[in-house]
């Protein structure tokens, strides 16, 4: 049995401590150890983007991050996107623009889109398509997702 490691990290603004095996990915730690199942697994090899989280200011596919690497880091997951006041404009825009069908890729898209709009509030359609190219959606053909992000962008500026 590999040794168990104590990891001390910050998730969605709260200090969070957990125990994990060195071989466990951050995705496994979030889902199976911490019970935060909003972050989804689609491929477990970094190609679908369903497990996108913000990791010390950068978006990563957390299936490719080890749980032990979270030590001392700041992580934002889909569970940290809405606040007590309500949904984030990106979430609201996804609802209003029918930008989801099955919904499994949605948490990853929302985390990635929010990160883009915070970094580049004037991103145009081409930039949005480029930024989101690491997130696969098989249901929508991306049309309504791109429109939702553009809609959220307008509302975040206002």
């Amino acid at each position, binding site marked *: 049995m590999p040794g168990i490691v104590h990891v001390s990290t910050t998730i969605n603004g709260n200090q969070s401590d957990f125990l994990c095996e060195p071989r466990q990915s951050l995705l496994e730690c979030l889902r199976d150890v911490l019970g935060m199942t909003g972050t989804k697994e689609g*491929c477990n090899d970094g190609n679908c983007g*369903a497990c996108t989280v913000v990791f010390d200011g950068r978006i990563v596919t957390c299936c490719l991050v080890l749980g032990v690497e979270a030590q001392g880091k700041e992580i934002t997951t*889909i569970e940290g996107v809405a606040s007590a006041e309500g949904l984030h404009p990106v*979430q609201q825009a996804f609802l209003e623009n029918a930008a989801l*069908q099955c919904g499994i890729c949605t948490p990853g898209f929302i985390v990635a889109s929010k990160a883009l709009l915070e970094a580049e509030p004037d991103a145009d359609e081409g930039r949005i398509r480029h930024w989101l190219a690491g997130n696969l959606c*098989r249901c*929508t*053909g991306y049309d*309504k997702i791109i429109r939702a992000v553009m809609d959220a962008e307008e509302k975040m500026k206002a």
Partner: protein
Amino acid sequence: MASNIVLSQVEYNVVGKRPVRPDGVDKVTGRAQYGADLQLTGLLHARVLRSPHAHARIKSIDSRRAEAHPGVSAVVTAKDLPIASLSREQVGGDYQRLKFASDNFLASDKVLYRGHAVAAVAATSPHIAEEALALIQVDYEELPPVMDVQDAMREDAPLLHDDTLRTTYMGEASDKPSNIAAYMKFEKGDVEKGFAAADVVVEREFETASVHQGYIEPHNATAFWNTDGQLNIWCSTQGSFLVRANTADVLRHPVSKIKITPMEIGGGFGGKVSFYLEPVAALLSKKTRQPVKLLMGRTEVFEGSGPAPGTWMKIKVGASKDGKITAAKATLAFEAGAYPGSPVMQGASCGFASYDVDNGLVEGYDVVVNKPKTSAYRAPGSPQAAFGIESVIDEVCEKLNLDPIEFRLRNASKEGTRKIEGPVFRKIGLVECLEAARNHEHYQTPLSGENCGRGVASGFWMNRGFHSSCNITVNPDGTVNLIEGSVDIGGSRASISQQAAETLGIPYEDVKPTVVDTDSVGYTMVTGGSRTTFATGWAAILAAEDVKEQMVERAAQIWETSSNDVQYQDGVISHIADPELRMTFKELARQINSTGGAITGTASLDPSGEGNSFGVHIVDVAVDPDTGKTEVLRYTAVQDAGKAVHPSYVEGQMQGGVVQGIGWALNEEYFFNDKGQMANSSFLDYRMPTSLDLPMIDTVIVEVANPGHPYGVRGVGEVPIVPPLAAIASAVSHAIGVRMQKLPVNPGAILEALWEKDK
């Protein structure tokens, strides 16, 4: 925004509007519970051992070392499946179907594809289960694989099923063992006479590769088999009642002792009509008496779950100078994968559906090969057939120098047209779709630019009815709870609730829908076949009618009058003669518990009025002659939705289907090495379209109301994947001046075609 809906005749209050879906907030906040999210006390984690060979005999399986591995609770193999150890006589007439089904869960005597399941392990963690898989020793005798439908049909081909599989035709089995599981033939008129009368005849062969449905959520199942025999399963499926029936069949366990809870589903597209894990998880739970969660990884999804079939087709179409089809012929050979059951029948019945053909002949072959058993994929069989047929039609138009939409209009199927295989069309909207496409600004704008091409194609899906059930209970605050069994794969909670709200004359927000388990609602068939909004929506309408009737009776009782004197209109219950006696739905709802108790409306139906659906697509592409890369410049999809209940989700189905079709046409394929092993079993190498690869997808919803549904609804989910293969291939053909007859039309294929042309 200008409306993209044409022809709509009727305006409703709720149907046709675009409200936020009821499950939306849970899905944008990460709270929705998908199968893999389930946590249960004492949960064990399971993994499946899969065959490294495409074709081999299993000589022995030794799992003793795995069982002794610390943390392992149980190992199962086919020996634990009852069917594998029962004889043909013990099982009876259904033996072969059940043996095939059972062997696909866990192989008993032979493995028939790389990725075929042979054993499964339950352990305290998924990592320990994976370690244990490596300790199971399977002794294989390798056999030559047959990977291609044409190879598999040859007389001397290696046989997958030894001497047990015979070709059936019209219910009769042939004498000789074969890989051809079934042959079919549909004929109308006299094709030889028709070809003789043609001024132009085009005959071409086509091939398409195996492609995967590509849902982002891998298959998953969690099972708990209690000591009293009650088996509970939580899974990702398009059809909970289908899982229940098949699990009961394969495990020889009563349906009454099985409860299937469908979790939120992360995509299916037909691929989750088939299932792979549930009985295996159940057996592991039976052995351990603990709940067992079994998840597939992405490579397992590619290698062990249903792709859509690879195909070979030969198409011949003859037409007169004035642009009328004189004869049409198609030979379709579809790969079934390891076990019989390709959708070649659907391909045969969809292929020429857009054309009023006097002389037609369609033949189909269902052929087993050493690939995973194929599963349904969005309009199963129709996209491949349309690729061949629409490409030939496009070439006929070129030869006749006729506009491809004009040609299609001259030959279009209409109400009363008899299809080659027999059925006569009821009211359909093909002509209206063709006209909307022709009149669209996209089509009216000439395409200019070097290496650019435009493609046009039409497509058909018959749509399905089948069983659906629904209960609606009135709450004291005047809202209603709607209980249904149709898994919501793309917004159907909304479209079903809208129909209930419309019927009851109450706001959409007052309908609260829940998708429930198999113990809690009447029999409901799969979410598939483009049937859910049509059939479960209709069940909701009937349940709402039942509620209305009971509300009328309750009002009559309160007013001490006959229910004949009470009417229900737009959510208001009133006395016909006395205007003083009037209550809104909400006012009456407040009184129901004190005047006789709850009101629950219930309905179950198996409707036959599903309206057939057509689509017409236009695409512009640019091909880079140096790299062979195709860029999709513009795409417009036109489709008859009958009545779009929630237009945004209709558009979403159209856009999603188009993009899957673009992937199928340009990029996607199972790439096998010479040993029959898939070489690209990841999303990196099996490349589905990303947001960067695409333009916006324009949609036009045509509404030719379906007379077979109260609100005129036609199913919409499947048609949009039918035209893109041919539309894209024709567009590329026009761009490079070479007819592309093989999918995918990837950069390599385009460069080869260009080199061949320049020779």
